[in-house]
């Protein structure tokens, strides 16, 4: 009889304990939900505010018109073309350099104080305020190298910003490749370069692409460094087209052209007193946010679909 009572006490004690632990689970999930919920709502309100304010301007003409003195007819043609061209430069500079640096640091560099030094530097670069990059670019690219206040300068400047993001993403993706796959490749007689090319690079591609897109999404919204190097705030012409109809069909004159970008165009309109310009600014803001979200969405999708193909 007493045995059974002891048994029940024991059982009750266990149940009380479980209940207590479950309560902690619940409390934490409420806190988490609250925090993430308020963040999401803040973002949503911000976004909706821009969309509602800018709604009257959300049409095709907005994208095909140059900015103008009259707010009704003004558009973001020169801004989005400028942003696109600057991003192209950024992409072609930051991606090869970032991926190559990531591979070098992870696969080739001898571990030691020098590697540690570079590691700390790269990590810190990601945290440097973007205006500092703008100052560096002004001194180096504009004055020292004489590249002018051009698309090329802006592209190079933003690639400085993007580099640490690509490097860190590449290294993390490489680290995620399990040792036994690597050893399998070496065991059949592959050289380091073959292992890098046939395996490391391919399996890390998902993470690398994600890093690239997130870096680009960041670059698209950057304003401070582009202002620092002297982007124009009002521009009513397009740079020379990159593709021409005479041989060699490709033309690099656009690299030297003056330009503006989306966030600067937005900034310019906000600083005007007329309310009508503020509508344009809101519409531009909405475009930037949509582009950023779109790019992040692509990054997530890419990561997911590549992950699904590679199982270790």
């Amino acid at each position: 009889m007493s045995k059974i009572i002891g048994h029940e006490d024991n059982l009750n004690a266990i149940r009380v304990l479980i209940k207590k632990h479950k309560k902690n689970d619940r409390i934490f999930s409420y806190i988490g939900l609250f925090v993430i919920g308020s963040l999401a709502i803040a973002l949503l309100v911000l976004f909706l505010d821009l969309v509602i304010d800018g709604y009257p301007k959300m049409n095709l003409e907005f994208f095909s018109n140059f900015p103008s003195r009259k707010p009704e007819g003004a558009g973001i043609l020169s801004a989005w073309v400028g942003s696109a061209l600057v991003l192209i430069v950024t992409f072609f500079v930051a991606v090869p350099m970032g991926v190559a640096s990531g591979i070098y640091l992870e696969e080739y560099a001898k571990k030691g104080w020098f590697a540690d030094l570079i590691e700390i530097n790269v990590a810190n670069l990601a945290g440097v305020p973007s205006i500092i990059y703008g100052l560096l670019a002004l001194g180096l690219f504009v004055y020292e190298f004489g590249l002018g206040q051009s698309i090329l300068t802006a592209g190079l400047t933003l690639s400085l910003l993007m580099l640490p993001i690509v490097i860190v993403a590449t290294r993390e993706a490489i680290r995620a490749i399990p040792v036994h796959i690597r050893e399998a490749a070496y065991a059949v007689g592959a050289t380091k370069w073959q292992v890098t090319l046939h395996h490391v690079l391919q399996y890390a591609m998902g993470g690398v692409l994600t890093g690239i897109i997130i870096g680009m999404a960041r670059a698209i919204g950057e304003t401070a460094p582009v202002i620092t190097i002297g982007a124009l705030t009002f521009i009513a012409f397009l740079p020379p087209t990159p593709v021409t109809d005479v041989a060699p069909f490709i033309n690099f004159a656009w690299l030297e052209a003056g330009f503006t970008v989306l966030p600067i165009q937005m900034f310019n309109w906000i600083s005007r007193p007329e309310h009508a310009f503020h509508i344009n600014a809101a519409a531009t803001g909405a475009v930037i946010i949509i582009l950023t979200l779109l790019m992040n969405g692509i990054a997530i999708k890419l990561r997911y679909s590549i992950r699904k193909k590679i199982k270790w």
Partner: protein
Amino acid sequence: MALLLNFVIVFVKKLNGNPRNKIIMARKEILKAESKNFNFHYADGTHALKDINIPLYEKKITALIGPSGCGKSTFLRSFNRMHDLYAGNKYDGEIILHPDDTNILDKKVDPIEVRMRISMVFQKPNPFPKSIYENVAYGLRVRGEHNKRLLDDKVEEALKGASLWNEVKDRLQDLAYNLSGGQQQRLCIARALATDPEIMLFDEPTSALDPIATVNIEELMSELKKKLTILIVTHNMQQAARISDYTAYMYLGEMIEFDETDIIFTKPSKKATEDYITGKFG
């Protein structure tokens, strides 16, 4: 003169008294490789192998047995210079590969060359996240082979050699991960086989497999030894007894006893070996 004769007689008796020498003399085994006073230190200073002397005879299976942590994998992985992948590891002594008498641990010998001659199958099946075909062909690709016909032939030959051909011949382009664990391990054997290695290393190749897949792999190894020399690490005493010709018993980084498998399992000369084999210890 009489003294000299006496000396010779004593010497011959001594030679015959050592069972290992008797076998070698009786069956004319050909030496394929041997480790001589081999010592190994990991980067952190762990002295994992101490004065190991083990011969590998051609077209024979040599098994390494011993309790966990005694250095079996460390020894096996020295044969294809796997330890070179990590900085700070240190080999001392020699591992001589015959018939060319190359010391494969020599700094002047490129580890890539060693790995092209000696291939390895790991404990956990580790196919690449690529197609079945590409997995098998990879060893040839790194040698710069691009001839499609030759690759096709070699892939087929290797898959047949690994008794996997019939199961995969219709889906060579499928991802290797769609195979079962046992099939994956045979795929890894095919990958190691495709480059015609002189020696194949197996590190507990069946420990992640079910009994039927295990039997498959064991039969496969007995088939493979007609062509090449095998060194296998196993935790499974029955497996060592079933498939190997020679067995080395290792303990705490030392080689305690090496002999014909029959002798190791029936009348080992060391008490420690006997205790381990009969399960009194380990």
